[in-house]
Structure formats: structure tokens, C-alpha cells
């Protein structure tokens, strides 16, 4: 069982997940996200504070979302992982260090900094 809540603010989308990301819930989760984000967001964050179990199917979904975001120029992050879930990601070596954050606020600050940096780059190009 997986509960999914979507929050979107100024092109930044956060999915708050609660339950298990397993062989039963992972593909519906992926399909729900890619349908809801027909217009690619600036950033997509999975907030996993309420997730107490991830199987290989869940890891595959994260890998697919990472690719999906990259293809669309969107930033991707994972936030607020519980220790047991983080351990599974570590075993799978599926934690891109630049996009894993202890909290949503930390992820948000990172995306803001990246946006400022990109804007400065644009200004310099002008």
C-alpha cells in the first residue's frame, strides 16, 4: 500500500509518499507521476519520510524517474529517507550524492541555489 500526495509550487513538484514502494506499487507510482507531469517541472522531489520499505522494483522506479527527469532537463531529488530505506539504496549503489537530501527544505535550498547559478550564467552570457 502506498499513499501519494503531490504538491507543486512555482514549477517545483514534491511527491510525499507513505507506505511501501514495492513490486505492487512502484509501476503505478511511475505511471501516475509521468502522467501528472506532462509538462516537465523544474524539479521533482520524492519525499520518502513516510516510506518504510523499498524493494528492487522501487529502486528501478527511482532509476527510471532519474532518467525521465534528465531527458526533460528537470532536476531530480530524494529527500527525508528513513535509515532502513537509505540502506537499500546504498546496497543498490543508487544514491546519486548530489540529489539526496536529509529534508525537503535542504532539497529546496539546493534547487534555489542551482537556479540562481543558472540565472547568473545567463546574465553573463548576455
Amino acid at each position, binding site marked *: 500500500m502506498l499513499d501519494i500526495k503531490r504538491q507543486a509550487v512555482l514549477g517545483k513538484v514534491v511527491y510525499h509518499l507513505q507506505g511501501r514502494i*514495492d*513490486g*505492487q506499487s512502484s509501476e503505478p507510482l511511475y505511471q501516475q507521476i509521468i502522467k501528472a507531469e506532462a509538462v516537465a517541472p523544474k524539479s521533482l522531489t520524492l519525499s520518502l519520510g513516510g516510506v*518504510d*520499505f523499498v*524493494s*528492487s*522494483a522501487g*529502486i*528501478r522506479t*527511482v*532509476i*527510471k524517474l*532519474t*532518467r525521465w527527469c*534528465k531527458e526533460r532537463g528537470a532536476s531530480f531529488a530524494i529527500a527525508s529517507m528513513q535509515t*532502513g530505506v537509505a540502506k*537499500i539504496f546504498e*546496497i*543498490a*549503489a*543508487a544514491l*546519486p550524492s548530489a540529489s539526496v537530501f536529509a529534508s525537503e527544505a535542504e532539497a529546496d535550498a539546493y534547487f534555489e541555489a542551482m537556479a540562481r547559478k543558472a540565472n547568473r550564467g545567463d546574465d553573463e552570457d548576455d
Partner: protein
Amino acid sequence: MVFTFNLKVKVAEQEVFEALDQVVLCAAGFGIDDEQQNLLRLSLEELLLNVCHHSGLPSSAVVDVALVLRDGVLRLTITDSGPSFDPLALAAPDLDLPIEQRQIGGLGIHFVRSTSARCAWQRLDGCNVVEVDWIIAC
């Protein structure tokens, strides 16, 4: 004290997920903690879905699942009557590649190997028998 639990599961996804809940609930009854319950669920899901997707058995076929806690060792045994196949012999995925370049498959058995104290396969009486052991802190 020895704790044992046996379950017959049809080779169908919905049945597998119901069985996962039953087995994990039983492990909780054995006194297994949440972290170990999750490792059990992880291996059980991978191994049972492997039989569902790759054994060629019809959905009416049955897999035997046994859970035994004895002398600080929790042993999961899964027995299926499909063609001879050792899932534990599958090559490990290349974890050095960036995740964007990874092959999607192969992680499940990697988890079984990495999170258990011992795992083994044998062909016995025309069946595949997979055993996975964890050491339980008492």
C-alpha cells in the same frame, strides 16, 4: 525454542503480495524486529516474483514457503516445481555505472545475496529449493 511457519502460495502476483504480508506478520510474531522484517520481505518478494515471472509455471501452481527461527538463525525456504533454475547464479549488476546508464534488472537477487548471511539453491526431488538465512540478534 523453534518457531516454524509454512504457507502455500499460488504463482500469481496478487497471491504473492498477500503471502508477503502473512509471512512478515508471522516473523513479527516470532519476535523479529522491523528492520529484519523488511529484509525478509525484500528477499521474499524478489524470489517469489522471480518464480511468477520466469518459471513458466501456471498461476494455478503452488510454491511452498517455510520460515523457521532456530538457534538465532531465521531461515526462509522457497520450493517450486518449475524447470531447474538457480536464481542465485545470476550475474551481479554493474553497480559502478551511473544510475542513468544502468540496466534496469538484476538488482533483486543482488539484494538477496547482500542482505543475508547465507543463501543457497539446490535441485531436490524435481524442485528448486532456495534457502536464505539471517542471523538474528537475541
